[in-house]
């Protein structure tokens, strides 16, 4: 199954009732999967929207009415969705947004890239907010994190973003799904369904009282702190005895694993630290590694975005080198191995 289709199937099984999308490569298989498999289900809706703006605002409406709703796109389309994501964050509405990212800036290229890390992990739209961001690195993980994205978004009332890339979306791998039948989540408390048997209520993002808005920002901030404490996911691979730890996420981590296996075969003690939640970032777990390892190599399919979080986590306690390729160029494991070897020998780790 392709990564894109796996997200679609996982979303349906997680109880996604509404999908709104707009065509853009390389995520069209997901939109098409939802058209074929969600749209005709009783109580479910698929709309090919007139724009990304319309799609995210339809998600906003469906979420207000209590439905599990999602949209997907790729980098340029995700930029268009930022208005709606900011409103979702302000209204504390759950939603799942998938970004099968591609090279940028601008229309960029349709090849896989990780150039949207900053946008995804720093809110992306206007205002002081964050979203929950997942960085899967396999089709199985795409499926698993899709369930989780719905659950976490519902639990914390924060929009969740799955930051994949064009390669992950289009690659085919075997995948197992958690739920057999579509999960039927209860209608979210606070949903707008007409003021029957209760006072009317409203959901809004505007206030003329700065103090009120400050309180909302504090409330969001406290939830981000809670996420940091409770919901951080990461993977450590061969880090126990590592003298050099590669930090990478998503498809980059997949390439890094191959390179690390080969480096080990050459006798280099190299490990991998892979954040799975990109926000909240596994700060403590990474800084813990710095107690045993003095050198890190950050590898990304961009010119260095996650490296900011890596350096903040390490707080100057270790050396951080960087290797990145932007614009949709995918380096091979062999190329990365050459970089690993160089960093390893130049820093006298061998």
């Amino acid at each position, binding site marked *: 199954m392709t990564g894109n289709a796996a997200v679609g199937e996982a979303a349906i099984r997680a109880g996604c009732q509404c999908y709104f999308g707009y065509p853009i490569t390389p995520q069209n298989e997901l939109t098409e999967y939802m058209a074929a498999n969600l749209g005709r289900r009783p109580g479910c*809706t698929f709309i090919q929207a007139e724009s990304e703006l319309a799609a995210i*605002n339809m998600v906003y*409406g469906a979420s*207000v009415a209590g439905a599990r*709703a999602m949209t997907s796109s790729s980098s340029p389309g995700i930029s268009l969705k930022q208005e709606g994501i900011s409103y979702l964050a302000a209204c504390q509405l759950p939603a799942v947004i998938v970004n099968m990212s591609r090279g940028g800036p601008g229309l960029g290229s349709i090849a896989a890239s990780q150039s949207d890390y900053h946008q995804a992990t720093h809110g992306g739209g206007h205002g002081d907010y964050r979203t929950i961001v997942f960085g899967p690195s396999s089709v199985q993980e795409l499926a698993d994190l899709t369930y989780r994205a719905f659950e976490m978004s519902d639990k914390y009332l924060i929009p969740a973003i799955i930051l994949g890339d064009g390669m992950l979306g289009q690659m085919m791998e075997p995948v197992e799904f958690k739920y057999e039948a579509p999960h039927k989540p209860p209608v979210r408390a606070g949903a707008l369904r*007409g003021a029957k048997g209760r006072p*009317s209520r409203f959901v*809004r993002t505007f206030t003329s009282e700065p103090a009120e808005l400050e309180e909302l920002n504090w409330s969001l901030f406290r939830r981000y702190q809670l996420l940091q404490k409770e919901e951080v996911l990461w993977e450590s691979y061969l880090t126990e005895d590592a003298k050099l730890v590669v930090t990478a996420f998503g498809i980059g981590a997949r390439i890094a694993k191959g390179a690390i296996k080969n480096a080990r075969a050459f006798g280099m003690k190299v490990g991998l630290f892979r954040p799975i939640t990109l926000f909240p970032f596994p700060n403590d777990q990474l800084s813990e590694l710095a107690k045993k390892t003095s050198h890190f190599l950050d590898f990304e399919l961009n010119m260095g975005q996650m490296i900011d979080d890596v350096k903040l986590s390490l707080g100057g306690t270790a050396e951080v080198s960087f290797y990145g390729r932007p614009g949709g160029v995918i380096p091979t494991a062999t190329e990365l191995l050459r970089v690993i070897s160089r960093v390893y020998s130049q820093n006298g780790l061998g």
Partner: protein
Amino acid sequence: MKKVFGRPKSLKKAVFHYCPGCGHSIIHRITCEVIDELGIQEKVIGVPPPGCSVFAYYYFDVDMVESAHGRGAAVATGIKRAYPESIVFTYQGDGDLSAIGTTETLHAANRGENITAIFINNAVYGMTGGQMAPTTLLGMQTTTSPYGRDDRIEGHPIKMSEILAQVKGTCYIERVAVNSPANIRKAKKAIKKAFQCQIDGLGYSLVEILSPCPTNWKKSSIEAFTWIDDVMAKEFPLGIIKDTTGKRDAD
């Protein structure tokens, strides 16, 4: 003694923040009267916009969700599709519906989304201080057309109702005004019919309301009310623009 007039049940006991002579308060009231008369208060979800009516939820005693500027039709689409039992209406100004939200509006209408739009046309951007709207009349001075709207530079007033009448998904479109008791009665009747279209599942319905904005028109209330008849309604003629309900005389 028989009570002949009172506050609609769907209208909260709050003092309107609108300027003297503004049409919003009249339109809020008649919309609430319609909601009461149709007995749909418990089903209604309203979608107010940014702008002067951003605080509509302080007045309408129904569930409401604020939309981003221009996205009302998309938000309403999401609500109605997720919860078809609801009665969903958008409340949108001329900048909202005929500038920034043209795409969302046109496509929601074209899909025949079973929602109702209350479209306030006052020929200016009100809350931001009287800038030129797509509906600003030729020659009309605003803060961003200080020399008067010139069609060679700023184009012509856009008639969204006539444009929307062209798409198959719309079932009922009428242009009304709220500048006299007779017109207010007609406006209420149109709003009622538009909601009835939705109740009957007929598709997208819209009522365009020519609404006075004395503050930004720099006129007295009386002058503003008269100006609607004398000038605005000449460019935006009142009446039914489209009706495919097949029961035009039922009301």
